[in-house]
């Protein structure tokens, strides 16, 4: 019984939050990695692109609600996703045409593109804050919980319970669907393969008749879809706050590089690696050990590797270790 309680405890405090957070990072990291693989720069404006997409989703959600349209027990925001995606695609293509294309044609160094993406970051930052403000916005509606901890306890008769928020389940399921479609696209369709080919060997792709303009457009479209979905899922799960999106960019970068920059599957795993180490290292295992160990061995301290204050610092530290020892990421595999 104690053993079961211990497992449930971990499930509730590590596995469920880890899967949710990992999904959010994974979606973000795949976007960053696609931009890096095809357009060849680290896009510092990506966090704010997520914020922009989410903002449009929030505004559209408000509009839908004002029309009396909701999505039953699911959040209305899911219905509003297409609006957010369309707006983000348009925005991305606009910035590509007005800003990034010039440097791509000039074959500028990656550092210059990073600097330029910081300029875009500032602009998006301003747009989002001017339109919707810097404060918290909660736009989650529909059912809050799939299962409450108390219900779980009653059902099983255990001391510990698993609480499952509907946003958590939605996040994981949406991520699975999105990533399945994406990987099918990249690996099985002609367009997806041509994107990978372009990313792998630009000159040869040109010699094979692959049109770079189209590849760039596909990439921005896919990236915008991913950014909007990731941002919306994060906003549903926590709340929408522009600054939090900037902050999230850093663990997303970490996940991208851990997975091997330019490698979408690696980015997917990288998201979960970062999420689980962050949560696993900041969780206090005292209660867990109390269940498992005999009384005389029970720990007196919290048994926590590092305080939750350093949550982000962990992902940064992992990243730095990876950068030093495995700069190409810890996963071997196909690069986009």
């Amino acid at each position: 019984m104690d053993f079961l309680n211990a497992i449930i405890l971990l499930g509730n405090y590590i596995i469920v939050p880890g899967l949710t957070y990992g999904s959010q990072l994974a979606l973000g990291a795949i976007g960053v990695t696609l931009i890096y693989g095809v357009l060849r720069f680290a896009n510092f404006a990506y966090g704010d692109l997520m914020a922009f997409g989410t903002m449009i989703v929030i505004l559209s959600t408000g509009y839908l609600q004002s029309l009396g349209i909701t999505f039953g027990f699911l959040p209305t925001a899911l219905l509003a996703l297409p609006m957010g995606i369309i707006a983000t695609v348009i925005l991305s293509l606009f910035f590509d045409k007005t800003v990034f294309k010039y440097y791509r044609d000039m074959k500028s160094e990656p550092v210059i593109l990073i600097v330029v993406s910081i300029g875009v970051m500032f602009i998006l930052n301003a747009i989002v804050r001017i339109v919707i403000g810097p404060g918290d916005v909660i736009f989650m509606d529909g059912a809050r919980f799939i299962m409450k901890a108390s219900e779980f306890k009653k059902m099983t008769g255990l001391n510990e319970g698993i609480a499952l928020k509907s946003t958590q389940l939605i996040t994981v399921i949406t991520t699975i669907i999105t990533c399945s479609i994406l990987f099918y696209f990249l690996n099985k369709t002609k367009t997806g393969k041509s994107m990978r080919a372009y990313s792998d060997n630009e000159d040869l792709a040109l010699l094979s008749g692959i049109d770079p303009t189209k590849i760039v457009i596909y990439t921005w479209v896919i990236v915008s879809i991913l950014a909007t979905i990731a941002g919306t899922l994060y906003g549903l799960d926590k709340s929408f706050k522009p600054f939090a999106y900037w902050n999230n960019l850093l663990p997303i970068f970490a996940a991208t590089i851990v997975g091997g920059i330019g490698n979408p599957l690696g980015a997917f795993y990288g998201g979960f690696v970062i999420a689980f180490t962050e949560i696993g290292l900041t969780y206090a295992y005292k209660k867990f050990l109390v269940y498992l160990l005999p009384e005389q061995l029970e720990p007196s301290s919290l048994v926590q590797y590092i305080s939750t204050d350093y949550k982000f610092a962990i992902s940064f530290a992992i990243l730095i270790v990876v950068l030093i020892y495995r700069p190409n990421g810890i996963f071997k595999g196909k690069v986009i």
Partner: protein
Amino acid sequence: MRNNLDIKLAFGVMALLLIMVGFVQSWGVALAILNLCLISAVMSMGVNIQWGYSGLINFGVMGFLAIGGLATIVVSVPPVNEAWAAGGFGVILSGLILFVLIASIFYVHRKFQSKYKNYLLFLLVISVIPMMKLAAGPSISAIESIDAATSGFLGGFDMPIILSWFVGAIFAALVAFIIGKVCLDLRSDYLAIATLLISGIIVSYVKHEEWLTRGVKNVTGLKRPVPFEVDLQNSDWFVNFIGFLFKGRLSKASDLDEKIILLNELVMTSSSIFVKLCFSVIFLIVLITILVFSEKALRSPWGRMMRAIRDNEDAAKAMGKNVVKRHLHIFMIGSAIIGFSGAMLVTYDGLFTPASYQPLRYTFIIWVMVLLGGTGNNYGAILGAFVVWFIWIESAPFALFVINALMSEVDNTNQLKIHLIDSIPYFRYLMMGLGLLVVMRYRPKGLLPEKIINN
């Protein structure tokens, strides 16, 4: 020649703008802008030395600024004796343990030969945090529990705060040494991300280690290298001086009471201006000193070598230059200057607020200054700092003016107008972004481009 003219003209325009602010808004505002321009100029020179001189991309500016700020606490705040008694020993012990651990990590990394080397290294690295916790944990909670609302930290060494500027530089250089050892051979875009993330770690340390910095509770009432306004207002010489300065205006007062009220007012406003002026003088001295040294360095054989390395790393390597070592040096020097300016900034503010360190404001704006001003040109970096800071501060009043002008017909209760006026602080981001993009596109070398130096 043409370049020289540009510099004079540019700085002339800048001075004129500041004087305009003095007349239109107030001299206090103008001086406040000037002082932060001067501090920012020191920061941007630090970044310029790294990026402009040798092409190192350091997105960790925020971290080095925070380290400089930390130095002001450690140096100038009076020690909290009860805290030292309660936990001083434990903290010092843990410091020693940390030193030994870091040294042994370096030793194992450098000298150890075994197939288990990496495992040992890994064990050592992950053991740092539990060891520190074990050694310092109880002491830290003891320190933090002493008078938590007003103190709850160790305090510092009660020394003059100007000393902390130098200490801040040394701290920053030491941290830069460690970071540089680990990261400098990374590819440029990875280095950018790595330094950004490391500065995040530094700031979360400063923010959460309350025994050292009081964390989000802030440290206020720091010392100053210049007099406090209150002391000036109560000192005879200053009151007499102001009386002398404004003799004409005072003599117009009809009676004694009015005269005293007027004098009081004048003393109040002038004292704050006087203090700001004192700061300006000190900052100007710092700026000019650093400028002179870095210009000299740029023209020395050392500077020539640095440019050679930047422009063609492989050729420099082939000629036997130790590129990694040079990069480490320049990373340390630039970071030291950034640390110095971080201490200056905290001194000027008079308080240390760890939560205020955010990459947008403390890393990327500084970068905008350098890129906008002119990479590789110290005058450019300084000009960039002035221009960007001026825009940063003045874009809010400017945006307000524009909104009011465009919507003068619109009622003041109009939702859109209220909303826009509420969002005025964010127009500065828009200005920064647009400014950066325009400069990168049409003057990629900045307003004052790097000069070709023939030596």
